[in-house]
């Protein structure tokens, strides 16, 4: 293949050398060589700068201003107070945002860990199973992945209605099976943690399964045939062939899951919509706490968001360090 390519290139070069192109064509070529990439990038650059980067920079700038309700009207012209907002958020015990942030951070981290573990495991199992199903049953894959395409706010509403005190879950647990004698309140205490995490797993395992399924289909079949010949059983085949071939994609799904579990404001907020009590598991998550503070105290919210963004940057760097090898080797 390389040989023919080389000779084709050579022919092209000779052909090009044979006819001296006109100035117009030469200019056009020059344009293509030097400016085409920028031309293709221009609309995206415009949109990214206008809709994303400018507001981000403004938001970071907000975090250095005293943007309380008194100065709210001045926005960018509010008095500059340096790192005061960060001090407030990070160290001042009396600050409401500071008081809320620490428990929220803990809950969010545990939730992220639980969600990622369960959704990756379930997603992988589902993908493996779907891959081994005979052709006529392939449509089951579409059904199992369906939770992923339900809009986030619909999922929130749906689960609020499922977790209701008199909802279907309590009916099954208490009235129909008698497993529990007392209907739990799914919006309070540790139960609220379950009630917010389960919908997230329900949604994200489906995405993981979809991506893993695509990756599984891409692994060359010969590898498995060779393993079969060598007498490796299914278990060994999974650990020695399947997983090593999917390392990179697992890494990417982990990253997506981290970002979403830190930022998935709509899902968390809507499942936690009713009755939030100040409590260790009060379904207070970092995105909700920050979102709430942005409405009341935008300068603190901006500082908190900037801190969160930097924290995420660190997480991504750790992620990159951990998975660099598997990303490159693909």
């Amino acid at each position, binding site marked *: 293949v390389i040989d023919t390519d080389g000779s084709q290139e050579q022919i092209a070069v000779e052909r090009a050398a044979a006819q001296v192109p006109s100035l117009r064509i030469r200019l056009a070529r020059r344009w293509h060589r030097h400016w085409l990439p920028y031309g293709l990038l221009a609309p995206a650059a415009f949109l990214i700068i206008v809709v994303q980067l400018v507001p981000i920079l403004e938001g970071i700038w907000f975090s250095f201003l005293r943007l309380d309700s008194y100065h709210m009207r001045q926005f960018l012209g509010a008095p500059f107070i340096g790192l005061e907002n960060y001090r407030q958020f990070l160290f001042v015990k009396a600050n409401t945002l500071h008081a809320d942030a620490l428990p929220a951070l803990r809950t969010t981290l545990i939730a992220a860990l639980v969600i990622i573990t369960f959704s990756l495991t379930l997603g992988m199992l*589902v993908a493996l199973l779907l891959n081994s199903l005979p052709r006529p049953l392939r449509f*089951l894959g579409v059904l199992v992945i369906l939770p992923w395409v339900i*809009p*986030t706010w*619909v999922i929130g509403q*749906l689960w609020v209605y499922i977790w*209701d005190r008199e909802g*279907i879950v309590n009916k099954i647990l208490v009235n129909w099976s008698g497993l529990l004698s007392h209907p739990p309140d799914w919006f309070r205490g540790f139960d609220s943690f379950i009630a917010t995490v389960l919908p997230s797993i*329900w949604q994200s395992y489906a995405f993981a399964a979809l991506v893993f399924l695509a990756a599984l289909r891409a692994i060359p079949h010969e590898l498995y045939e060779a393993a079969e010949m060598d007498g490796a059983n299914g278990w060994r085949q999974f650990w020695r062939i399947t997983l090593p071939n999917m390392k990179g994609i697992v890494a990417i799904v982990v990253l997506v899951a981290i970002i979403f579990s830190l930022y998935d404001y709509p899902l968390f907020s809507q499942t936690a919509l009713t009755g939030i009590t100040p409590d260790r598991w009060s379904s207070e998550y970092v995105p909700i706490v920050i979102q709430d503070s942005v409405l009341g105290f935008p300068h603190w919210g901006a500082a908190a968001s900037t801190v969160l963004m930097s924290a995420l940057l660190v997480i991504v760097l750790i992620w990159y360090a951990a998975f660099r090898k598997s990303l490159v080797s693909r």
Partner: protein
Amino acid sequence: VRRVKHALWAVVKSLFVIFMLIFALAPIAWLVIGSLSGVDIQTFNQARNIPWSHLWDNRQVYRFFWDFPPFRDSLYASLILCGGGTVVTVVVAVLAGYSLARFSFRGNATFLFLTFAALMTPSALVLLPTYVSVGWLETHTGIVLRNNYFGGILLYSGITLPLAIILARGFFASLPRQLEDAALVDGCTPFGAFRKVVLPNAAPGVFAIAFISFLLLWSERNIGSYLFASNPHTTTMPVWLFNNISTYTGAGTPLAPAVIAAVPCVLLFIVGQRWLRRGLQAWVVDG
């Protein structure tokens, strides 16, 4: 022993499949049943038995919402803003993704880094500044971006753009180069090669990008409620529903609208799942 083991394994496997099917579909089925109950959520939850026999008779709940002008407006608004935003995002992201994947030029890595930064920014940070900037534009230049389709499509397309660019870049990087090289040798310009050779082969990837962007926009509620909620023609469905939940309780609200909102996504997914899978596959192989 081997046969027994095989049979056991098959049983375990099918049990797991059934469990996953129930886990995935039961909540959705419950949503549809609830929407057809004909009463509001509270009453439905308090009812002792599920009124199975009445469910089908209550299908006029959907008719009611379909004929209900404010809801119809919000559905159209969602379709226009999210659809328009998706189209703009996809066109822009495909061009940018191709450029990033195929050309090495000064600024390539910087742009990619900025895109990642935008992707990782919490929406809470961007919301207020966007609001301020839109207000500033309005007073200083007379460009109105609030409550109209132009601003809606512009801002909505910006929301998903970082993700779409990264997906597009990965997808184009996975396409084999040989086709383009052949086209170049045959005298195509680089852009011509992109238009005539690469794009026709990129349909699955483009669909995957469009679908993921559309899903993201369809759930968008922040920008929608801050900047587009005062005009009924730009009030998207989630915004309208959350502003009016208490007003229109009864008639199976708000579960019927939630079902209606999920329908476009489910339909798109079922129709395009083959393309989606192929698009993801290309992206997965080497992103």
